[in-house]
């Protein structure tokens, strides 16, 4: 396990894109009380996001096509990040780029900023081409691209800033991906994102929420069995302290809470309090 593995924050944090700018979440509890605050995915240039409707309901889940709306790196570093750091939050910055070079630049500039607890590279967008992002899913060639993204981000980041990769919750493929990224220097994984799905009106969207919890948990279990030295953060459908424990029991060192926060803005604070002192990731990933 990398020295950085023990620096991965946990055990309970919000999921990328489900915590607003942080200010909104701060209305319901101290950000410093969370394992970490994970930002929206930040891109080099500002993004307006997709067309409406962007988020709709589906049984026990949400479908979203937000399109990575974000203010761009400059504005994020100038305004949002310093505010988060002032709140005492351990900030995990989520990034995504249109090329390997862009990823490297994002990692370098985020890594130079004070107060960043970790960088999370979003390699799991359900529809990267739709949003002009790098295709890192399939075929094999793209998997190699993911590896290059991680190795160049690792090079640009200060040694002691943990580098996380966020992967799609695909139980069949996640282990193979993990091996490649481990070699490329990743310190931990976030598994997983929302699943590729169809919006009611026929546009591409992504499925999140309790509906996919057993799929995300399966991914965590596969990784814990196959790559026990690589810390995994479980993400997907966690909505209660019991869910969080089930994810930790499957082998995760931490959990992220997304959709549940959109239903109950106190969810991440409630679950963080429920999981409480149980910071097993601090023991070095002991399961």
């Amino acid at each position, binding site marked *: 396990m990398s020295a950085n593995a023990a620096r991965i924050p946990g055990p309970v944090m919000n999921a990328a*894109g*489900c*915590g*607003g*700018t942080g*200010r*909104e*979440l*701060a*209305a*319901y509890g101290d950000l410093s009380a969370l394992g970490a605050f994970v930002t*929206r995915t930040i891109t080099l*240039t*500002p*993004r*307006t*996001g*997709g*067309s*409406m*409707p*962007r*988020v*709709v*309901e589906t*049984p*026990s*889940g*949400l479908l*979203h096509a*937000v*399109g990575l*709306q*974000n*203010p*761009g790196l400059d*504005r994020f570093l100038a*305004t*949002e990040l310093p505010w988060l750091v002032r709140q005492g939050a351990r900030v995990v910055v989520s990034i995504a780029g249109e090329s390997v070079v862009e990823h490297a630049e994002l990692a370098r500039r985020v890594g130079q900023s004070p107060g960043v607890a970790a960088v999370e590279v979003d390699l799991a967008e359900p529809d990267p081409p739709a949003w002009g992002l790098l295709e890192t899913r399939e075929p094999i060639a793209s998997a190699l691209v993911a590896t290059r993204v991680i190795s160049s981000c690792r090079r640009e980041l200060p040694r002691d800033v943990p580098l996380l990769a966020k992967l799609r919750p695909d139980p069949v493929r996640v282990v193979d991906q993990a091996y490649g990224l481990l070699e490329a220097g990743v310190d931990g994984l976030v598994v997983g994102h929302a699943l590729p799905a169809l919006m009611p009106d026929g546009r591409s969207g992504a499925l999140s*929420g*309790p509906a996919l919890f057993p799929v995300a948990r399966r991914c965590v279990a596969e990784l814990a069995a196959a790559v026990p030295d690589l810390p995994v953060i479980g993400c997907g459908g966690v909505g209660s302290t019991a869910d969080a424990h089930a994810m930790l029991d499957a082998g995760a060192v931490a959990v992220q809470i997304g*959709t549940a*926060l*959109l*239903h*109950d*803005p*106190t969810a991440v604070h409630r679950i963080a309090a429920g999981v409480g002192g149980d910071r097993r990731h601090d023991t070095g990933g002991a399961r």
Partner: protein
Amino acid sequence: MTSTPPPGDPAPTAAPTPTGPVHVIGEILHSRRTGAYQHVTLAAPDVAERVRPGTVVALTAGEPRLGRRLFWVRGVRTVGGFGSAVEIVVEPTGPGSRWVAELPVGARLPVTGPLGRPFSLPRDPVSCVLVGEEVAAACLYPLALRLKERGCAVTMLLGARSESHLLAALEARRTARSVTVVTADGSVGRKGPADDLFGAALPEVLERAAADVVYAAATTPSLARVARAAEHHGAWCQTALTQPGVCGTGLCQGCAVPVAGEDGLVRSARACADGPVFRGDRVRWDELAGGAP
């Protein structure tokens, strides 16, 4: 077009001040059908105290639905034994609003609020025209009271498809100096075309009231027209948008509204957190209607 939600400035809803939102378990105290709407009074400790006109509360919509449903705060009441409560008006149209409308007295459910930026009140006792359409008019009643307290002259223009969808015109007369009612079917008040309910009445009302400020809560097409009419008349205009979204708390960026900033750049604002009240001259109505963010 570059675009971000307004950063930097501490949003009133976000700062953990006494005006910020709280998440509590509410309880249905009264629920009564009037016309097409269900009037629901909800004990919601700490929420009611924080409400300002134009803010909303978010309610759950029953398993397995994960989105929140937003409702304008129609009023605030003190209720013996429960402290204060909020009144909302529910139009049962889909599964979520029907679920809320059918909750029996005594039912308990999570309530988050108040959410969003309220209407800005004028410093001086100016002439205000309040334009309200159907259920959205709910948020104008607490506003009218506050404006009257400040010595403003309040004129109301209320519209609906028919009388059963008209919200409390009688009560409006108690607060407002003058009330004009328009319905699409002519069942009460003037008859206005369904596709431009306020079209004929609006310029006339603005003129007659010598409006300095226009406040509007209506469907998006109506709001666009009111904003234009206000600008034409030279009045300052604030519009309360009913833009769909799922969380209501500013977390998901699901409720995008294209808004021009001071710098003239159009940004994608969140209707629920940066709104629901926006300056009428700042919203890009054409893009909004087109579905673009």
